[in-house]
């Protein structure tokens, strides 16, 4: 389905107001874009939230338009898109396995080595693995575990990403806005 399509990562910074997610998803829906992954959390700057969304499309123009439409919303500070080359990105995955099956299988060490798995929990009933990585990596582990030990529960987070470039676009933007604010105040005082 996603043949010839590129995965784009859209980064959005917003004021921390109610209903921003709704505003963003409406724009995806109207533009007939499927959200592949979504992750939201407070950003490094207090009061500002960061959204990381991935979506497939075969046309970069679509991304440009999408980002402009999102940026246009009053509560949005900044929106931009990147492809994987520009980003360091990760997803987290948790795998719950039956302790009994793991014991039967023998070595956990193999998984720790090959997949860089961390073990979060070991109890009589279950063992929980954590793996951070790209989609293919978390997926690869899932497939191998499924065909060997069997996976009781599996969950994967949305992508989180940071750009490789030196500048942080949000702080530049905020600095510029502050400048504009003082200018505005100055002209209004006259």
């Amino acid at each position, binding site marked *: 389905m996603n043949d010839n399509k590129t995965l784009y990562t859209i980064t959005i910074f*917003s*004021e921390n107001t*109610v*209903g921003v997610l*709704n*505003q963003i998803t*409406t724009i995806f829906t*109207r533009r007939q874009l499927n959200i592949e992954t979504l992750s939201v959390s407070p950003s490094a700057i207090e009061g500002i939230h960061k959204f990381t969304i991935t979506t497939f499309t075969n046309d970069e*123009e679509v991304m*440009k*338009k999408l980002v*402009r*439409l999102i*940026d*246009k919303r*009053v*509560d*949005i*500070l900044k929106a931009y898109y990147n492809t994987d080359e520009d980003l360091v990105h990760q997803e987290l995955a948790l795998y719950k396995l039956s302790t009994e099956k793991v014991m039967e299988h023998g070595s956990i060490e193999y998984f720790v080595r090959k997949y860089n798995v961390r073990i979060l929990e070991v109890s009589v009933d279950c063992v929980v693995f954590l793996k951070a990585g790209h989609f293919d990596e978390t997926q690869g582990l899932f497939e191998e575990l499924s065909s060997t030990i069997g996976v009781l529960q599996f969950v994967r987070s949305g992508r989180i990403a940071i750009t490789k470039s030196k500048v942080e676009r949000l702080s530049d933007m*905020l600095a510029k*806005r*502050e400048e*504009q*604010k003082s200018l*505005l*105040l100055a*002209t*209004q*005082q006259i």
Partner: protein
Amino acid sequence: MERDKQTQPVITPTANKETLSGSEILIRALVAEGVDTVFGYPGGAIMPVFDALYDHKERIKHILVRHEQGAVHAAQGYARVSEKVGVALVTSGPGATNAITGITDAMMDSTPMVVISGQVVSSLLGTDAFQEADVIGVTQPITKWVYQVRRAEDIAWAVSRAFHIAASGRPGPVVLDIAKDAQVNSCDFSYERTTFLRSYQPIPDPEEDKIQMAAEVINSAKKPFALVGQGVILGNAEEELIAFLEKGGIPFGSTILGLSAVPTDHPLNMGMLGMHGNVSPNIKTNECDVLIAIGMRFDDRVTGDLKTYAKQAKVIHFDIDPAELDKNVKTTVKVVGDAKQTLPLVTKQMEQRAHPEWLAEFDTYYQKEYDHIIKKELYPESGEIKMGEVVHKVTEATNNEAICVTDVGQHQMMSTRYFKYTKSRSMVTSGGLGTMGFGLPAGIGAKYGAPDREVCIFVGDGGLQMTMHEFGTIMDYGVNVKIILLNNNFLGMVRQWQELFFDERYSETQMKNPDFIKVADAYGIKGKKVTKREELDDAIKEMLDHDGSYLLEVVVETKGMVYPMVPAGGSISNIMLGNGYSL
């Protein structure tokens, strides 16, 4: 005007803090924003506000409409002619949902408006309380901004933001959904007008290199052509536009909402663009070498098939909204910013030019259109009365100085084609949404927005019946509007499509109508029904001479057609002229 407001001091603190109820705060905040007219309808969840209004009758005039859709359309009409923000006040649940059509219409047509809706008390939110509707959820996609106020403390702040957002940049509707307890509870009041929000830059900074590029491309043009949109009117850039066009010798066409930005008889004015626009501006869009779009958004009713649209031209797009640039048409030069600032910057770098041969080419097409269509529509000698001739007679009788308000359908296209303008802000019509029922209430609002101007409302028999209850508002307040009902006893525009594209199968478009004059009479509105051409002039004179509202019903040909016509989705070079002719 909004721009002027922005240069006023940012902070105008009220001297002393006072403790007031949320409703009282709301009213004072509205007054602080310069609001003197509000269109609304009361109900349980907004009663505290109406109660506060009772004490401020001298400062805020409230117009009680007969349906909330009417309140919102009236606020739109008010805003469109007055440069102010329109305000509508409605109750929760059904009051708010009745307002949805007008809010959507204002969003499509970039109309500055603040809609205040009551909401159930905050403790009941989300419980399916009586008359609770998820107004935020419903209106978010159809507004520029929405905010739910749950505390009295937030009212002043929210109103201040709402007006800033509605009026600045590319204007649009804002909804404030105010919970009943926030209206009732008390808190300290002080007011500051908002002029800055860090997440919102209403006017993008002009880009010097783009300004220069635009001027260079225009200077190199042999056959320049401009498209004028409502952005010019919203930005009060009419004079700057005329200076720009005249210096470059650039002929132009207007979008439906751009009409009246430049007077009809300006020598560079080539008429209206789009599906039922004039022939020459449509044809020349596909023949010019440089196409300059100013404050317009390349709506599909203007462009037709994008694959065949202006492919030969370099396109320059002036717009305040970066999201409009490259949205539908790929441009060569994008000039973001406020046209009032960017146009003069470009004009300064332009060379004085004239393009007499190029202009003459437009004349040839105008002549064709005149012979095939305009002459027959405006000056018929026999047969049933035509819509165009009525519009023509009305505009002439008002010295082309009136405000033309329309509903939606054939009469709308005839009005926008044949009404003439000498002043800006003289055309109020539902462009983007095409809302039947818009005309009558928008006309009422327009009269409040421009009390000194004549307001002529053109409606069809279908659309009038969608909001005819607003006759009640006219009666109640003695609103002086002239209503011209062009009655073809058909849902004319749909019938036209049925004739052209559905084999004349007139499915559900013929209407049995009431005696409109009697209906008007019941509301104390004077009226006359005209069926003969000979009676028309006198009737129009009587209508305009009458001191008060008037309904002039003109029975027009049942199966009239609006031509020229670019069929939906077709190329704007393929224009039907009617009677089997095409270009």
